[in-house]
């Protein structure tokens, strides 16, 4: 913009809109996308926005430095950080790759001593870091760790010991060293502020009496998710102390003594009439399930992904859950179970079906295309699906998206790589073509099965709102990836493994990568020279190659490309080459 014109506009903006008013308005803005837009309007809006921002979300911890963040946003109370590329969840990123929270904590201690919340995903966190955090930020209230690694229960003990105002401790799906359950006993006896406690994925026993006392002291407890060592007999003793619970994750739901504590359990559940989310239920049986029926009327999210239910058991349960919007199940429920979903849950928006025996091809259990079709007929509002299966047809997917055109997230995993339509033996191109053509709101797509470049031509052409694309064992040539990079105007994350895409494909995206958060390519045909060329042409991208032991010198085994204002990583381990 012309500088003179800019000055004029700024003067106009300032004189017609006093700063105090602007700040009052901006404080209401929560969405980081809105705040980004606001900050681009003019200098005074940029300043007003940055002073009023209290929460910052950093989607790639290497895209920016702690210094830059603290300089721009002086008043932050809450930070969300994501670290490693998503494929690290599936062991595709070697250990000690990076994303250590340490350097951020040092900055927080200096610049954000009043920090209240920290949410981390795929970061490396050590026990020392947790203790440092607890001691540096006396007002610390909420810690959420998802898919992180590097710490043990000692770190949790430090948090419990030192954070006097803790309201949230959410430890989900991390690769932690679970030494013992004694961390829970570190909460002081007068500590009572907890509102969220999730230790469902920890495996050691906690002291039950300590837990019982903790729950009874914390009168505002809304979310409680215990691990599977908490028995069905112990559960009522917790529930009676927490009538305000909205989310419950049970421990083991196995009845040791038939008909014994059933009534106590039923009474406890009867008191919990505010529950909208239920999970856990490991080892649940047909005998213990009915205890849940009274609470199910208001359930909106039921997570049965740790409960190996059969189809009949699920059907009986779902009759009581008419308000369900989100359902996660294991494929033990089979197609019949999914038919029951279609019949009983008209409001369903999200379905995830996880595999029980993902590596065992001999078992013919699980779900097929019929189950998915049945759900699509009954649940027309379906917008999010994650579906693991062993067989699928193009016709099935075409029917499904016809029934449910509002998909925003479509993640289909046909578990055998390169598997064609099992009825026609054709590639699954038609299926995904139907998805992108029909579901105009599609934001996230994961493809699988035997796919040619045609699928990617369609994706590039029709997926106008697509932001995240995951591709594995698919495509025929560079052309496929070129189509995606040439289309998909809103693409932000592209992750590819084991596809025949090479340098030509990689380099066709030069214009695109700066508007994307990141690109991951592993097991493809990209070479070091191709990556060097990319790095040379696009100096503001970080082009990193992870070298795998024993591989060819010229091959770029795993490539991770992302935009960054922080420059190349200074903490890269020896196997990460920054080009």
């Amino acid at each position, binding site marked *: 913009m012309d500088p003179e014109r800019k000055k004029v506009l700024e003067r106009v903006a300032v004189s017609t809109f006093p700063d105090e008013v602007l700040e009052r308005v901006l404080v209401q803005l929560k969405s980081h996308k809105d705040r980004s837009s606001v900050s681009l309007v003019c200098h005074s809006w940029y300043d007003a926005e940055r002073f009023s921002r209290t929460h910052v979300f950093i989607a790639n911890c290497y895209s920016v430095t702690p210094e830059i963040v603290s300089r721009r946003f002086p008043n932050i109370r809450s930070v969300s950080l994501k670290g490693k590329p998503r494929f690290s969840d*599936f*062991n595709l990123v070697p250990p000690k790759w990076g994303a250590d929270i340490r350097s951020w904590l040092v900055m927080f201690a200096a610049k954000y001593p009043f920090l209240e919340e920290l949410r981390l995903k795929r970061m490396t966190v050590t026990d020392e870091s947790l203790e440092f955090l607890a001691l540096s930020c006396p007002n610390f209230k909420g810690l959420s760790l998802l898919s992180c690694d590097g710490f043990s229960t000692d770190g949790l003990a430090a948090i419990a010991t030192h954070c006097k105002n803790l309201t949230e401790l959410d430890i989900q799906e991390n690769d932690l060293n679970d030494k013992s359950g004694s961390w829970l006993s570190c909460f002081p006896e007068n500590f009572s502020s907890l509102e969220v406690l999730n230790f469902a*994925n920890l495996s050691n026993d906690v002291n039950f009496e300590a837990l019982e006392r903790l729950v009874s002291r914390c009168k505002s407890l809304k979310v409680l998710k215990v691990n599977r060592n908490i028995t069905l007999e112990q559960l009522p003793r917790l529930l009676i102390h927490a009538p305000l619970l909205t989310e419950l994750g049970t421990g083991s739901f196995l009845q040791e003594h038939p008909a014994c504590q059933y009534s106590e359990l039923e009474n406890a559940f009867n008191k919990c009439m505010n529950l909208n989310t239920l999970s856990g239920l490991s080892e649940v*049986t047909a005998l213990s399930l009915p205890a849940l029926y009274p609470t199910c009327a208001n359930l909106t999210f039921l997570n049965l992904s740790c409960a190996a239910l059969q189809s009949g058991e699920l059907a009986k349960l779902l009759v009581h859950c008419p308000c369900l919007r989100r359902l996660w199940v294991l494929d033990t429920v089979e197609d019949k179970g999914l038919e029951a979903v279609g019949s009983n849950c008209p409001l369903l928006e999200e379905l995830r079906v996880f595999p029980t025996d993902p590596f065992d091809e001999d078992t013919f259990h699980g779900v097929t295309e019929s189950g998915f079709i049945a759900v699509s007929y009954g649940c027309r509002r379906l917008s999010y699906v994650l579906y693991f299966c062993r067989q699928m047809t193009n016709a099935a997917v075409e029917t499904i998206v016809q029934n449910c055109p509002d998909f925003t997230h479509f993640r289909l995993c046909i578990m055998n790589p390169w598997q064609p339509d099992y009825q026609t*033996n054709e590639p699954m191109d038609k299926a995904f073509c139907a998805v992108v053509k029909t579901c105009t709101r599609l934001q996230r797509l994961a493809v699988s099965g035997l796919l040619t470049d045609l699928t990617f031509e369609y994706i590039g052409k029709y997926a106008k709102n697509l932001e995240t694309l995951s591709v594995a064992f698919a495509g025929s040539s560079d052309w496929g990836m070129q189509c995606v990079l040439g289309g998909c105007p809103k693409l932000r994350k592209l992750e590819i493994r084991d596809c025949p895409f090479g340098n030509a494909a990689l380099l066709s995206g030069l214009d695109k990568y700066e508007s994307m958060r990141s690109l991951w390519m592993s097991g493809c045909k990209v070479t070091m020279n191709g990556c060097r060329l990319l790095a040379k042409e696009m100096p503001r991208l970080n082009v990193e190659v992870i070298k795998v032991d024993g591989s060819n010198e010229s*091959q770029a*085994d795993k490539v991770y490309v992302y935009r960054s204002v922080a420059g190349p990583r200074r903490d890269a381990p020896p196997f990460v080459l920054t080009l």
Partner: protein
Amino acid sequence: MEKSVNYGDHDDLNLEATELRLGLPGISSSSDIGYEKQSSSASTVVVVRNNKRASPEGIMTQESSTKSNSSVSDARNVGPDSHHQPLAKAQVVGWPPIRSFRRNSFQQKKTDQGDGAGMYVKVSMDGAPYLRKVDLKVYKSYPELLTALENMFKFTIGEYSEREGYNGSEYAPTYEDKDGDWMLVGDVPWDMFIFSCKRLRIMKGSEARGLGCL
């Protein structure tokens, strides 16, 4: 973590091992349990040929991935041709894409509950302070199992008859089956029993006699 062995040089390829055949596995001259590590540029594919699976259409092998580093013109070389079957028993790193905590929890469940190949089930006895566990696979028949239970809990079970259940004692052995129902031990053939039994309970007193009178 993952191991990656690169067969970039064609001379190193054991071409016979990757040859497509129309015979039963195990007949060929290659090793009985063919265990080959081959790699595309980064991910490791471990192909284990399983003798148990007689596949008339032929064995799918991972020949395509070994070629993936070489020819660029053969664009479809990653992936099977139409007459190949999908990978037989291949395990690819990080595939299917499920997080490790989920994978681990199922391996644990399988060892806990058993799946027909050596299975420990819990045994509870009314009035006993704690439960025990027995491995059903160790026993070949009902009498063997019942004798073991009698020894374990120091009691006697009566004589089984289809008509009257267990007569002659105040105990009756029952089990919970896959549908969650409590059944009397002994009604179904032994092999069917061990597959459907999830846990055992030795009922005592009037409850037990009630079953006997059915």
